[in-house]
């Protein structure tokens, strides 16, 4: 019985650890979507959107 409890705790700790890792991955993804050149990206979006609208 004590052994079972120990194992459950270990699994819980691993679960928490993997949850923590998930949060870190999410943060990295958000950071990657930020750009050092927001003005240029906006310009690209504007031009591409207008070209797309014209072709429809």
């Amino acid at each position, binding site marked *: 019985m004590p052994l079972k409890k120990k194992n459950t705790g270990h699994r819980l700790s691993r679960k928490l650890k993997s949850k923590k890792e998930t949060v870190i991955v999410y943060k990295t993804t958000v950071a*990657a*979507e930020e*750009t*050092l*050149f927001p*003005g*240029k*990206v*906006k*310009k*690209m*979006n504007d*031009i*591409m*959107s*207008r*070209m*797309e609208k*014209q072709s429809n």
Partner: protein
Amino acid sequence: MNQRPYPFTRFADQYTFISVGKRSITKMVEFSTGMHNGIFNLGFGDLQPDGTIDDMANSNNGDIIKVLSTVVEIIIDFTDTNSKSRIFFTGSTLSRISLYSRIIKMYYPEFKKHFVIKGIVENNGKFSEIDFDADILNGYVGFIVDKINYI
């Protein structure tokens, strides 16, 4: 281009290299996605001491060919891992766009070995994509680069 490119490092979609001319300047190239799938903006600028990027800088470091050669290598590297991606780039000002047109014209024989270059023009408020014409240096609002994938 005859000049060997500078060695560069890549972290995700950001690349850095050091231009060694009159001074040592850290250059950054970033590919960022926007609202449209498969097209990336190519941002290029000098890393400032405060960590920001200056994409208006005229560094005049005496190594423009080497720097351009490095940017071309970076585009090749990026499109190797994103083979169907299109690369969009533009200048911060009309004169900067015109400078890019002159640079493309100058190195067009080399560029076209690797890429198909399109110019984006605006006519009566309408944008269209045309083949880059080395005889037209003004009038572009941006450029799109497609890598030629040799089989």
